[in-house]
């Protein structure tokens, strides 16, 4: 049998054959929409008041680069061990996984990262050169600490004046140990001090430090917080056995045990009220929280209310105090009036309206009033613009007096949370930086975030949210040691894997896998290139992207042109 083997094209019998590759054919001209890689914001990042770059540090956690993850958080928040424990984590409320199989436990991972770096004392070096200007910060609460910390990152020296004997403000005196152990707070404050921030304790402006002493600073940040409990406004509130929530918690946190009777009534529905109630419970007392609206309107963090209930705190809703009476100068009974909900007020919550003739009495050995806190601004020498009880500041945290800035609970638009104070401190530091004549890098956060429908959930098998380890309720209600525990490394990694990483390309190759036009390639550095010579713009890559990090833009649109110029 003859074997046919053709060595040249000429030897082949006459038939049509192709030797060229279709690579020569620019099918990209068919396209009318163009896929582009475009990282977008995640809803958690947009929602985080401190602006933490959550998807970025999660990726570092997944790579087990815990120190780098810690540094990433520290860009925006110097107190991750604190916020990882006490933040009300609005980020989780907006998590795109919430509607799928439960929000990612973001704040538990934040706490894990902070605790993993507990022995790590060196904060990242300043991002800007040393400057000659000095800034005074009044108050060492979260706002003051955050501001001083950010200022030192920007190259400024700052001095914090703290009226109390120890720094931390509300973090130290307002949050009980079972939520925030002091050693965590001490560690993070010491780390900030190690950066060169000076904290002068026992230095109360207008008392043992004159306001005039601040004149040698180039700028001042007022962050004295809201430390005065609001008055109940009912007769008998000066009797023995009536505490304010703040005083009660402060006593406890300085190591003294306040004298409380068997039956403790707590007035109020905020975090101070819940903290006071759970603390009193730990002293072995019977505790009832009295609130003038209903459970839904309570401003306290819902998890805290649940915990309090689990531990055995009683709740009485729609009641308001009328009179406290007692014998021998000591409170023993409280007269209450029932309320009902009326029209919504300016806070959007329904206003409680008294029910006439519904008065009744309850036994009360100890009454803790925690119906709100106000700032004490009596030390200020001139009449600053105020709104209600707080200093009025604009978005840049300026007070109207040049060089004097304010933030946190002492100023307007706080909502009484740690993380909002941290944000105020950070924003004020940037404003001070600009006030001193420097240009800051853009701090603008675009509020467009990846929507749930932009996430391709096919790529994320169902996996429930981590169960946070904690001590039992039986144990927790008898001790001031911490209730919730830190996630184990395994739990943290599993939980970090649950994150969709909305809007940030993780180079997972899905776009490349499904391209029918073989038009996406990956270079050595792992970056993708779209071959627009051949891409027909089918859009599969954009549709399949698990995390909404791609977009289809009309051909010829401004974005498309920019993309080309970029290339």
């Amino acid at each position, binding site marked *: *049998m003859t*074997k046919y*083997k053709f060595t040249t094209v000429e030897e082949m019998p006459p038939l*049509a*054959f*192709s*030797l*060229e*590759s*279709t*690579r*020569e*054919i*620019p*099918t990209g001209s*068919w*396209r009318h929409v163009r896929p582009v890689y475009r990282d977008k914001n995640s809803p958690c990042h947009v929602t985080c008041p401190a602006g933490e770059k959550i998807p970025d540090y999660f990726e570092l956690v*997944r790579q087990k680069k815990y120190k780098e993850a810690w540094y990433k958080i520290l860009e925006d928040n110097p107190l991750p061990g604190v916020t990882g424990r006490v933040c009300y984590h609005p980020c989780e409320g907006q998590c795109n996984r919430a509607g799928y199989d439960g929000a990612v436990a973001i704040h538990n991972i934040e706490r894990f990262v902070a605790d993993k770096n507990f022995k790590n004392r060196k904060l990242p070096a300043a991002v800007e050169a040393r400057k000659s200007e000095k800034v005074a910060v009044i108050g060492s609460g979260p706002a003051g600490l955050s501001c001083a910390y950010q200022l030192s990152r920007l190259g400024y020296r700052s001095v914090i004046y703290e009226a109390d004997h120890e720094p931390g403000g509300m973090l130290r005196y307002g949050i009980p140990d079972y939520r925030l152990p002091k050693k965590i707070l001490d560690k993070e404050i010491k780390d900030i001090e190690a950066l060169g921030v000076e904290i002068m304790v026992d230095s109360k402006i207008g008392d043992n430090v004159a306001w005039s002493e601040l004149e040698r600073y180039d700028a001042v940040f007022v962050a004295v917080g809201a430390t005065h409990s609001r008055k109940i406004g009912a007769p008998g509130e000066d009797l023995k056995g009536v505490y304010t929530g703040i005083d009660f918690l402060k006593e406890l946190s300085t190591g003294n045990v306040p004298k409380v009777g068997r039956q403790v009534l707590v007035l109020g529905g905020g975090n101070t009220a819940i903290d006071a109630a759970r603390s009193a419970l730990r002293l072995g007392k019977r505790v009832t929280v009295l609130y003038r609206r209903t459970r839904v309107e309570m401003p306290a963090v819902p998890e805290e209310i649940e915990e309090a209930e689990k531990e055995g705190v009683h709740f009485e809703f729609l009641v308001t105090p009328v009179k406290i009476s007692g014998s021998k100068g000591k409170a023993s009974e409280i007269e209450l009036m029932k309320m009902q909900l009326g029209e919504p007020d300016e806070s959007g919550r329904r206003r409680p309206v008294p029910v006439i003739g519904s008065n009744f009495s309850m036994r009360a050995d100890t009454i803790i009033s925690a119906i709100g806190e106000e700032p004490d601004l009596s030390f200020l020498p001139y009449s600053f613009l105020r709104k209600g009880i707080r200093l009025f500041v604009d978005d840049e945290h300026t007070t109207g007096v040049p060089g004097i800035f304010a933030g946190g609970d002492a100023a307007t638009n706080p909502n009484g949370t740690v993380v909002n104070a941290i944000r105020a401190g950070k924003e004020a530091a940037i404003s001070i930086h600009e006030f001193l004549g420097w240009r800051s890098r853009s701090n603008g956060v675009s509020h467009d975030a990846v929507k749930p429908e932009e996430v391709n959930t*096919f*790529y*994320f*098998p*169902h*996996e429930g949210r981590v169960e946070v380890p904690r001590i039992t309720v039986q144990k927790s209600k008898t001790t001031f040691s911490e209730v919730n525990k830190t996630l184990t490394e395994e739990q943290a990694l*599993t939980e970090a*894997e*649950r994150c969709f990483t909305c809007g940030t390309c*993780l180079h*997972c*190759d*899905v776009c490349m*896998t*499904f391209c*029918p*036009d*073989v*038009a996406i390639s990956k270079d050595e550095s792992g970056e993708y290139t779209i*071959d627009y*010579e*051949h891409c*027909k*713009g*089918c*859009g*599969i890559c*954009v*549709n*399949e992207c*698990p995390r909404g990090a791609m977009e*289809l833009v009309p051909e010829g649109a401004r974005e498309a042109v920019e993309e080309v110029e970029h290339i």
Partner: protein
Amino acid sequence: MGQIKYQLPPDEVLAPGHFACPGCGATLTMRYALKALGRKTVVVIPACCWSVIDGPVPYSAAGVPVFHTAFETAASTASGVKAGLDAQGDHETTVLAFAGDGGTFDIGLQALSGAAERNEDFIYICYDNEAYMNTGIQRSSATPFGAWTTTTPAVSPKAEKKKNIIEILAAHRIPYLATASVAYPDDMIAKIRKAKDIRGFKFIHVFSPCPPGWKFEPEDSIKISRMAIESKVFPLIEIIDGIDYALSKEPDGIPVRDYIKMQGRFRHLNDEQIGIIQANVTEDWERLRAKFAPTRKVSRSRRDESTGENKSSQTRNVTRTKNARKRAQKSRG
């Protein structure tokens, strides 16, 4: 755990610049097939979309030798190419017949049956886009019940069910038979590689969505393919020797309606007709289900796996596959 990722063979044999419509499933099928088989492959293509997609003379997209042949002759030409290679002493090169549903279910059926009966040693991939798409969307025997095509207009859509090509091929008792989908590239590539290592006739039926023919936006190609699997419209299976059935992926069991509603070719259907389709799908699924023991799940819901409830059947399946492999080796020897 975490995100589902795919690791495909890195070599891109298929070239860009081909003539496929945007979002073409048949093109992804070819891309994955060539990734699985490598460059030592000869492709035989009868009249079908791919006659055009490969490019006009003097261009070709495939990156390997392609033999374009007449509509009914994919299987017979592939048999000849294989014989020719054998005659030259080349037993390494893989021969791949790559045909549409028209050239497989209808026009090429006798050649296909002949090659299957002779147990010719090549792989036959049918990329099924459920109509004659290349010539202008005419119905084929692969077109599903109720679908619009230019020859089954919306006023009288296709009244017959899709031909069950898998059962026809299974009746030929060929060594390896599988279904695959462009939405599960890892599964498809694994099956094609498995086929490459088996001697004799191998048939792989690939579900390949067609955006213009099915009337949907090209970006939804993969999504629709996935829904076809999840709704049990197109089960992912393997059949060894025409007898041993195994399920590759347990479907989530979403309503067929969700899949139908994505496509303009089903837009005219009323609830009653959709009900008929759902009933047919359920019935076919039950019939198929009876042929295999519940099996290892390549499922999204991996939790099912961890419960271990199917452990006994898993082991059973492993033994079945082992037996099949022995049989295959015997026939090779």
